[in-house]
């Protein structure tokens, strides 16, 4: 066995299932299997687990498809089944399951399905601080192996968990009412056993039944279907409450990741009349230059997008753009984006922009769409959705786009992931997205990135930026520098 990082500081851990009806399975059944999987570890350590309905639980369990924002995308039905995070704050301890797998609530997990119990028991090992083991047959062996209903934790895993959290106090642990970890006995109805019909004789009126072996004798009558078995963690555990319908608390709202607010954007159909800048058309009205009401302070702002276009630097923030050449800020700038680029609608921001090397087209990303411009004019047929580039349909926006000087390839960044784009086939390359940690020191949720004339790459986040060392694949300086001072010529501080 291998331990990873620090174990939990407390022994009474809480858990919560955050996906309702995952993979179409009955929620109660999934909760029961997860509780059983945790029980495998509880029985062999001093740990206790309690289910709560809250995002504040130590171990949050959820089901996801494909890319889901944590750097470990799922791959549909097949190879990757699940993953979990080692103990810690935020995502620490959380377990994610691939929703596209064929999950079964049957422990054996036949060829057609994967046992949720078996995989959950393995993943919870990670949630508690165990890494993979090379011991075949160990629960922490990385490759899937079905486990039996009455599974006993192998020695390898037992040693691992007990090294971190200690062995259970007593063999009667959980059964002794005097011990704090006491759990009342669980009512486990037996499954109806199949008994072959015995030969009956019709010679007499009485029917003779052969005596069944004692093992198959039903212990008690089954009062409810097997998939509704009570569990100590479920609120309807106690017999007097058994008549109540099962209680599934309402799912709370998903936590919102603290990021800059996403602006949903629906592009108008191309060819619609764009709004004129002057609203009045009476003869008395004269042209007045647009009032730059919400012009951001260029010495105290972050940037939406920056790109080197025809050897001039274009800096986008809100509905404005700054244009800088070798002599500094070009006259007439900052200007509204709409004054320079003929979008079919009013533009209040752009998410990302880059200049395509092959044909010098300028590509803008706004929300779920991208726009291709030839000089200042939109190419026919645009905008198109991001999915036309091979990006996932649930991607809400691109944070940044660049042509990387190192290999002249196009890259898109969003959240903690990035994609490499093949301009020749007009599609993102296979094996992407990848985690942004590959660009070491940059971190997720960047604002923009671009390549300067000398080929140097700069990443921007907030009011700061990093120069990137392409050869060593890491930032050239750990402490970011002030964008306002370096790029806008503002006084330091």
């Amino acid at each position, binding site marked *: 066995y291998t331990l990873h990082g620090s174990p939990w500081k407390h022994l009474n851990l809480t858990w919560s299932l955050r996906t309702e009806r995952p993979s179409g399975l009955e929620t109660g059944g999934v909760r029961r299997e997860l509780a059983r999987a945790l029980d495998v570890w509880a029985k062999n350590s001093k740990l206790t687990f309690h289910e709560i309905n809250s995002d504040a639980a130590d171990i949050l369990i959820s089901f996801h498809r494909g890319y889901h924002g944590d750097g470990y995308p*799922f791959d549909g039905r097949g*190879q990757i089944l699940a993953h979990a995070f080692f103990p810690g704050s935020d995502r620490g301890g959380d377990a994610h399951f691939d929703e596209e797998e064929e999950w079964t609530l049957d422990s054996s997990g036949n060829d057609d399905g994967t046992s949720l119990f078996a995989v959950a028991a393995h993943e919870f090992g990670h949630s508690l601080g165990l*890494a993979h083991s090379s011991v075949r047959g160990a629960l922490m062996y990385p*490759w899937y192996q079905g486990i039996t209903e009455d599974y006993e934790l192998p020695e390898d895993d037992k040693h691992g968990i007990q090294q971190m959290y200690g062995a259970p106090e007593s063999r009667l642990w959980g059964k002794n009412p005097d011990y704090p970890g006491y759990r009342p006995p669980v009512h486990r109805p037996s499954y109806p056993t199949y008994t072959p019909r015995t030969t009956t004789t019709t010679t007499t009126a009485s029917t003779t039944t052969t005596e069944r072996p004692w093992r198959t004798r039903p212990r008690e009558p089954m009062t409810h279907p097997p998939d509704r078995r009570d569990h100590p963690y479920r609120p309807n555990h106690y017999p007097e409450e058994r008549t109540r319908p099962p209680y599934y608390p309402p799912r709370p709202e998903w936590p919102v990741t603290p990021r800059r607010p996403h602006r949903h954007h629906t592009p108008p159909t191309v060819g619609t009349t764009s709004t004129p800048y002057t609203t009045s058309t009476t003869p008395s009205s004269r042209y007045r230059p647009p009032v730059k009401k919400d012009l951001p302070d260029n010495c105290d702002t972050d940037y939406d997008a920056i790109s080197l276009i025809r050897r001039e630097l274009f800096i986008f923030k809100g509905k404005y753009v700054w244009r800088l050449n070798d002599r500094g800020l070009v006259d007439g700038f900052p200007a509204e984006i709409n004054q320079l680029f003929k979008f079919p609608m009013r533009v209040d921001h752009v998410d990302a922009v880059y200049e395509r090397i092959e044909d010098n087209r300028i590509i803008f990303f706004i929300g779920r769409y991208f726009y291709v411009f030839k000089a200042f004019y939109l190419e026919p047929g645009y905008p198109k959705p991001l999915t036309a580039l091979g990006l996932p349909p649930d991607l809400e926006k691109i944070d940044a786009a660049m042509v990387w000087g*190192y290999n002249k390839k196009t890259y898109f960044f969003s959240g903690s992931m990035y994609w490499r784009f093949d301009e020749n086939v007009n599609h993102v390359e296979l094996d992407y997205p990848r985690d942004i940690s590959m660009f070491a020191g940059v971190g997720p949720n960047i604002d923009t990135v671009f390549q300067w004339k000398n080929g140097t790459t700069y990443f921007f986040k907030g009011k700061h930026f990093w120069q990137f060392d*392409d050869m060593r694949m890491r930032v050239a300086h750990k402490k970011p520098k002030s964008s306002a001072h370096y790029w806008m010529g503002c006084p330091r501080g």
Partner: protein
Amino acid sequence: KPAFSAVYVDDRAQNYLMKFGYLPQSGLETGNLRTDDQLRDAIRSLQKFGGIPETGQVDERTQQLMVRRRCGLPDKPDLRLQDPSLLRRFKR
């Protein structure tokens, strides 16, 4: 006996080795070439972990291991912390 025998590892296998921590990931974007020994060691390490004969080649049993259902976490810790070439100090 040939003095040099190259090991052939296709992109898919290399990605598998990188994904599960048997090869360092730093070469992904920069396209660093991997040495023959580095690849062979990575395959051996995978074979050892999976409990199959350590041949150093992507043989049939290794291919079977690579398509088996599994957990998505790496088997080895991040090699960037272990690769001496990435830890060496650079001159200013």
